[in-house]
């Protein structure tokens, strides 16, 4: 095995120089980090000890861990969001297995989301208001519901855009180009400030819902473009074959075109999902406390000031783990697809 390593990284002078240089960089960063976190790191002790040390204030993270993860969710009911997250992880593992891809998938997904929502919300005496939801469960909720609704909407938009009828086509084009041409922030602003102005008296929509709507508006346009790419890659012969056996437009789309198109664009679709998941962090700008928001809030505690780097580090690790898992799934699907073609 050592010989394989040598062959890969040290095969000639150029390789050796490059490998040594890069190795030095890695070692330097690694050592600095190790020093910061482990050797100089303050694992036990209060804020004063931390401030006098040059290492990481791990006790800050220990103190704030629950807050960063769950926000101000009542502590006695914490088992509910924890259970919710566990269920979501199990769901992810289940849904990413190819053999489970059938029509029952949608039903299972819907049931899972309802259970998740009920867990977070509770009822009767144990009800927890949406204003108290925060941290990772909120991020997951915004992303998953966001994807669940904007993906089908995106499919409809893509179908509209490739339609031969002028009305659906122009409406879709205007919507897609408008949304894709502006930053997510402006849509979040729009939804949080403008939506109440469009509502009749007496009806209010809470902030969480408004943010969710904004995310759905935004992502559906991006999914629409991804699906459109898939639709365009289906050869004309497929349409002709379907017509020749008497299928109508809706049947052709549902049974012939979409199954092929959607599978073909799984990599960019998952990329868009990862992007959406990261974009939920923007809701901090309209004062919602998702994972990014709670991280920032944890730094404002007057007893623990100045440990922003530690907090950002924890937040980054959580995002990194989730995003790279999704990315790995996308790569796996892409490789499988390459192999079978």
């Amino acid at each position, binding site marked *: 095995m050592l010989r394989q390593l040598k062959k890969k*990284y040290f095969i000639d002078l*150029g390789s050796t120089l490059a490998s040594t240089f890069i190795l030095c960089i890695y070692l330097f960063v690694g050592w600095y980090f190790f020093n910061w976190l482990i050797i100089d790191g303050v694992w036990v002790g209060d804020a004063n000890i931390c401030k006098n040390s040059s290492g990481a204030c791990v006790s800050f993270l220990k103190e704030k861990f629950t807050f960063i993860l769950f926000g101000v969710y009542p502590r006695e009911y914490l088992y509910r969001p924890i259970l919710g997250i566990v269920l979501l992880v199990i769901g992810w593992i289940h849904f990413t297995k190819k053999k489970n891809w059938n029509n029952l998938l949608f039903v299972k997904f819907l049931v899972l989301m309802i259970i998740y929502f009920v867990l977070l919300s509770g009822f009767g005496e144990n009800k927890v208001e949406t204003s108290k939801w925060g941290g990772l469960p909120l991020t997951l909720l915004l992303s998953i519901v966001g994807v669940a609704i904007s993906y089908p909407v995106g499919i409809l938009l893509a179908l509209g855009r490739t339609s031969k009828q002028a009305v*659906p086509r122009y409406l879709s084009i205007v919507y897609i180009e408008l949304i894709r041409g502006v930053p997510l922030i402006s849509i979040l*602003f729009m939804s949080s400030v403008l939506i109440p102005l469009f509502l009749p008296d007496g009806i209010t929509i809470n902030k969480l819902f408004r943010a969710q709507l904004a995310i759905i508006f935004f992502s559906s346009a991006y999914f629409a473009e991804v699906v459109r790419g898939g639709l365009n890659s289906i050869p004309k012969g497929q349409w002709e074959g379907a017509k020749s056996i008497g299928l109508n437009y809706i049947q052709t789309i549902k049974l012939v075109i979409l199954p092929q198109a959607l599978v073909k664009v799984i990599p960019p679709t998952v990329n868009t999902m990862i992007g959406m998941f990261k974009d939920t962090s*923007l809701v901090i700008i309209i004062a919602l406390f998702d994972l990014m928001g709670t991280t920032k809030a944890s730094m404002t505690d007057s007893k623990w000031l100045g440990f922003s780097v530690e907090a950002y580090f924890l937040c980054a690790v959580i*995002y990194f783990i989730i995003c790279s898992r999704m*990315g790995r799934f996308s790569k796996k699907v892409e490789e499988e697809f390459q192999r079978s073609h």
Partner: protein
Amino acid sequence: MNINKKLSSKIFSAAILIIVLGSFYSLFSQLQHNLSAQNVATGFGFLEYEAGFEISESMISYDSFDTYKKALTVGFFNTLKMAAVGCAFSFLLGLIFGVMGISKKHALKNFSETYINITRNIPLLLQLFFWYALFTDIFPSVRNAHSFFGILLSNRGFYFPVFSSSVVNYLFAFSIVLLNLGIFYFSLVKIKKYKGLSFILLSIVGVVGCIFIFSIIFPVSAPKLQGFNISGGKSLSPEFCSLFLGLTIYTGAFMAEIIRSGILAIDKGQWEAGRSIGLNDYQLLRYVIIPQSFKVSLPPLISQFLNLTKNSSLAVAIGYPDFVSIANTSMNQTGQAIELVGLIMAMYLSLSLLSSGVLNFFGRSSRA
């Protein structure tokens, strides 16, 4: 029957049109009702009012007595500045890491993949907050600023030496770019082995030499602590620096991926055919590889430039006074959210339509 199908799709279209128009109408009338009920002003008249707030950095002269219109213009220029600088440097970063990613030296390929992997899996906002925290929390005050090679890093910003005359500064920048391009050509064509290494070494020597020569001939203004402030040199605010670093590093990773796949998309046989008729590496790149690669990569690259410009709107989260930041402040002061959000969207939309135009222009002049 055919007639039935055509009719039903027309009816379907008409139905959609009616629903959409109908909902717009009802939403609009509700909006008017609500606005008048809450006594909120409408219209763009507020643009002529005095803004009443300061802006921390501006490319044109501005003070709090100027109008909202002027304030928004300041924001617009700040957005353009960030977008231009960010696009340029993230493309450069993307070139460097993209080429590294197809290197035969596994260490370089690994380094490029690590960079791309880490940056793409962490939200941009988090990266921005991190860089900003670096400046505001980690960097010391101006009295104890970190200093090296005449550069000062403090929580008030990034201070660096410049030449006293601005003409000389442009000359200097121009010479550096020209020098590097020349060294690139030289290493590509005249050097047989270790082209990459020679380019790096010669480039470092060249840049250092240039700095040396210029600083001997022309007077330099270096930042120095004087009293409670730093005078001399030029500075970039922490807001600018963190937004720039975050945007460039983040977008650079996406650019690197695009450039990498753009080069890999070119069949190996093209390289071989070009070499076999005696073209040198520069000619090969210029006439065979890059024209083909460019066609593949240009749309996604432009889309990344657009993304960078849109992402610059996150400036509002760290206090860089871009267009969205200033519009946000104005929104809070005047309450005229609809007009301002409309302006924000109009501004970005026009930039995005402009780039679509550019893309179409290029698409038409190159062969399909």
